[in-house]
């Protein structure tokens, strides 16, 4: 199975859900099959979010995922660009991509 390597960062408190570690390097399948009957398609951010939940998340899934995507308080960045400019969950991941998940800070 072909894989792609990604750099994942969590910030703004989200790192607390992932072993209190900000930076992670992961490898995920490049063309995962959603179900045995469907043809495999390129891994996108929606797939990544579920992969992170299944493989990296240590606690409190409800603070990371809501209704099949990230919780609305979380901003996703694809190579330093707001994921909304990149197609949000349907952005197809490329080898070497850097994906950042941040929560907003309150303090001052």
């Amino acid at each position, binding site marked *: 199975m072909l894989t792609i390597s990604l750099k994942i960062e969590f910030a*703004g408190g989200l790192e607390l859900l992932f072993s209190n570690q900000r930076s992670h390097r992961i490898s995920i399948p490049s063309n995962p099959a959603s179900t045995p009957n469907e043809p495999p398609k390129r891994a996108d951010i929606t797939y990544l979010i579920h992969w992170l939940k299944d493989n990296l998340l240590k606690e409190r899934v409800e603070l990371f995922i809501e209704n099949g995507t990230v919780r609305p308080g979380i901003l996703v960045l694809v190579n*330093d660009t707001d994921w909304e400019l990149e197609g949000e969950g349907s952005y197809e991941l490329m080898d070497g991509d850097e994906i950042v998940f941040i929560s907003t800070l309150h303090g001052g």
Partner: protein
Amino acid sequence: MLSLPEYKRYGRQMILHQFGLPAQLKLKSSSVLVVGAGGLGCPALQYLAAAGVGRIGIMDHDVVELSNLQRQILHTESRIGIPKADSAAQALKEINSSIDLDVHTTALSPSNALATLSPYDVILDCTDNAPTRYLLSDTAVALGKPLVSGAAQKYDGQLSTYNLNNTGPCYRCLFPKPPAHELVGTCEETGILGAVTGTIGNLQALEAIKIITGLHDGIPSLLIFSALASPPFRSIKLRSRRPTCPACFPSTSIPPIQQTDYVAFCGGLTPNWYANGL
């Protein structure tokens, strides 16, 4: 239009390429409201006053405490116990007696937000809690004003200007729901390094000066700072307004600001309704 002492005082910035007398006059005729005179507000106020912003509003309803002095660098030991807004105003007067200062020692609330913000050209969010951040964002969008928002916690900081040119995203566009309380405590609970609030507050002043003088490129972005990371700064290109944002595209089904319970929206758990700077 400028006095001789003003030419002398502001000379070092007036000789800057793209600055000159026009930018200095824009600063002089501009007004900025800084909400929160704590870790972010102190350095922001300092550089706005030094640069010659003509009118500065300082809003904070809290009093100076010893535990503030580790990072709230406008306050002094001798001013412990007096309102932070007064203490900050006193410090600014010593730096620059030629600018006008408005002192607001009341708390920002849904009932006074529109009236409080409306006289100012640019608003700085230097507060420390989610309800006030949403209230400030909604009010800035409703009034069509740029909101230079800073935040800092632990070793980390964030900076973004919301509602930039009335086309950039607001706080709600980016973060439709407040973060979980479990993940982001207050500075009191999680700690904060003074030089981190200093860096972000300083950059808030810079951002406001760029907006007022026309030096800002108008592209909405988010700056993320982490004092222990390498590289420490990261700049993010942001979307424009979110079409489903209830603040940027209000419908009649949305209650107006005055009738919104921001504390409940943010989970109702925040101990202090308004930025107390801790």
